């Protein structure tokens, strides 16, 4: 490669002179860049939405006590074959699922920058009594201030508090409230599995749009949950959030080897969602790779044509002293420039299209007006699209360029 005044000016002139072909190729590159930016952003946005619906209100990673499953005596290793076991099979008492030294772990996770939220949780099922009626509900006792970063309920409050929910108060979904005719400041009785009873005041009613949260879930302060489940000062799990929720399984795997706990990610809990997204991504990637390859072939074919028609001129340039690296550089520059200009057209076009889409607002099923597309323009993606297009342009130019560099001036002079 020999970038110089000579190679650059000849390359530019070739492109300008063959402006029709250049524009066509630039158009192909621009469209493929636009497709990358557009598809990745819109599909990425809809995937985030799907995941938010499924995993939106849960931690990305859950750290909980390791399960200790009892082994039947008949399954112990080292039994002689045909041993007869006599006895009564009964369920063994399970070790209680709790983390005693959670403060130390919360502090340790808090120091790890990859965790954006570290929330201690007491989780379990309790009975909600209201007059003569009762219902089993899922209870999460949390530090509301911290846990709101996970469930994001404060913004969905219809009445009352969430982030500043005081001890002795409970936040419930509007569907549950409606079912029991509960209003703010009403009193409820909660009964834990050990028949421990707690009377609480309704301090917040919310509507998140997610059925599970609105229907049969209630939130308390950590202390209240601990006493209801008779956990003392222990908790049942630690919820973690990370920046890129698609990395949850990788982070969980890394964590597993570092902590004496069971570590689950939302991905292992919702494999079908993840596989749907994964297969969707693979389909898109296939489409994108195809368009990029098409753009590469576009550039290559224009340059092959150019080298063929300029066979004589190239031979004469070489006779006059242009070296093979110079000739090769001329055509590689052409491929590079076609790709660069393609990006300069395609990326702004993509951004404009996305901005237009982002401004579309429609009423959702719950009547709320919201954006039709969840669009977040990622500069990294733009850089990636440009990088791919330019790399492909240079690679596509490389082979015609090498052919040009190998033209023998003698064969031109002999007038063949």
């Amino acid at each position, binding site marked *: 490669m020999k970038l110089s*005044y*000579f190679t650059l000016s000849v390359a530019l002139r070739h492109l300008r002179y063959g402006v029709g072909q250049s524009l066509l190729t630039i158009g192909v590159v621009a469209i493929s860049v636009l497709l990358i930016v557009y598809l990745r952003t819109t599909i990425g946005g809809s995937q985030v939405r799907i995941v938010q619906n499924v995993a939106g209100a849960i931690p990305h990673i859950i750290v909980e006590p390791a399960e200790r499953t009892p082994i039947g005596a008949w399954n112990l290793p080292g039994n002689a074959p045909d041993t007869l076991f006599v006895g009564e099979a009964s369920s063994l008492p399970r070790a209680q699922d709790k983390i005693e030294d959670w403060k130390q772990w919360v502090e340790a996770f808090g120091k790890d920058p990859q965790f954006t939220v570290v929330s201690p949780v007491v989780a379990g099922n309790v009975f909600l009594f209201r007059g003569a009626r009762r219902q089993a509900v899922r209870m999460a006792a949390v530090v509301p201030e911290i846990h709101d970063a996970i469930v994001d309920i404060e913004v969905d409050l219809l009445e009352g508090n969430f982030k500043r929910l005081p001890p002795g108060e409970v936040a419930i979904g509007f569907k549950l409230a409606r079912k029991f005719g509960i209003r703010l400041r009403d009193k409820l009785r909660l009964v834990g599995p050990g028949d421990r009873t707690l009377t609480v005041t309704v301090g917040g009613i919310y509507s998140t749009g997610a059925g599970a949260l609105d229907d049969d879930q209630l939130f308390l302060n950590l202390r209240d949950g601990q006493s209801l489940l008779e956990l003392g000062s222990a908790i049942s799990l630690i919820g973690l959030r990370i920046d890129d929720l698609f990395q949850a399984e990788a982070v969980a795997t890394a964590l597993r080897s570092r902590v004496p706990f069971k570590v689950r990610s939302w991905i292992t809990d919702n494999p079908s969602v993840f596989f749907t997204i994964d297969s969707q991504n693979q389909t898109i990637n296939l489409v994108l790779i195809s368009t990029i390859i098409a753009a590469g072939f576009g550039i290559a074919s224009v340059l092959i044509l150019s080298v063929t028609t300029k066979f*004589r*001129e190239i031979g*004469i340039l070489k006779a*006059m*002293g242009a070296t093979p690296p110079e000739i090769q550089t001329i055509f590689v520059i052409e491929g590079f420039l076609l790709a660069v200009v393609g990006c300069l057209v395609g990326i702004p076009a993509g951004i404009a299209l996305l901005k237009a889409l982002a401004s579309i607002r429609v009423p959702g099923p719950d009547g709320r007006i919201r954006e039709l597309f969840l669009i977040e323009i990622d500069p990294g993606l733009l850089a990636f699209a440009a990088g791919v297009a330019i790399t492909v342009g240079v690679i596509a130019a490389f082979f015609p360029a090498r052919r040009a560099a190998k033209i023998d001036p*003698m064969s*031109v002079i*002999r007038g063949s």
Partner: protein
Amino acid sequence: MADTRTPVIELAGIGKTYVSGDVQTPVLFDVGFRIYPGEFVAIVGGSGSGKTTLLNIMGLLDRPSTGKVMVEGREVSNLDEQGRAEVRRDRLGFIFQFHYLLPEFTVIENALMPCRMKGPKYEAAEEPRMRALLDLVGLGEKLRNRPSQLSGGQQQRVAVVRSLANNPALVLADEPTGNLDSRSGRIVFDLMKSLSRESGIAFVMVTHDDDFALEADRVIRIRDGRIESPGTPRPAPAEAT
């Protein structure tokens, strides 16, 4: 009388055999001569006698099978492709039977193309000279035209001017008038001759035209790949010191 000048080019014992597969075609046999600065030399010989082959070897476009080529006293026959390209770029000019101007560039840009290879400063420095030369050959009005807007004779005149762009020591021309009508051919020939006189650059021209050959300073005759007569080098202008 021994000539003490350094020849612009010297061939010694040049042999050339084309090999393609099992077929060997010997074309040149023990060719040797010297060309001195400012000489205007015609190479004549029958078709297929090896003139183009010889010129390509002199122009470092082809390698001889045997023998040595010296340009301004420096052996160049063993240079690699890059080295030979550099000698062509710096010391040699070429005129071909077809002009092969670059269609994307204007007349003046085409004339300056060899300078462009040497960089923008060199090109800028040579531009006035090239303008003057194009003016001299009657193309002063056409500097900004594209080659396609010129007649064949005009295009070849541009090619002649281009061959002088890099201030070469030697210009090699293979039947530069071969593709032109006799009037245009005469104009181009006269042009080469006068430029050679004025610039002191040596010209070697292959021609089939006996009239042109007679007007050359010196005629090298070649027959079946051998030098029939090397002609007499023009004596050094001894008085001009």
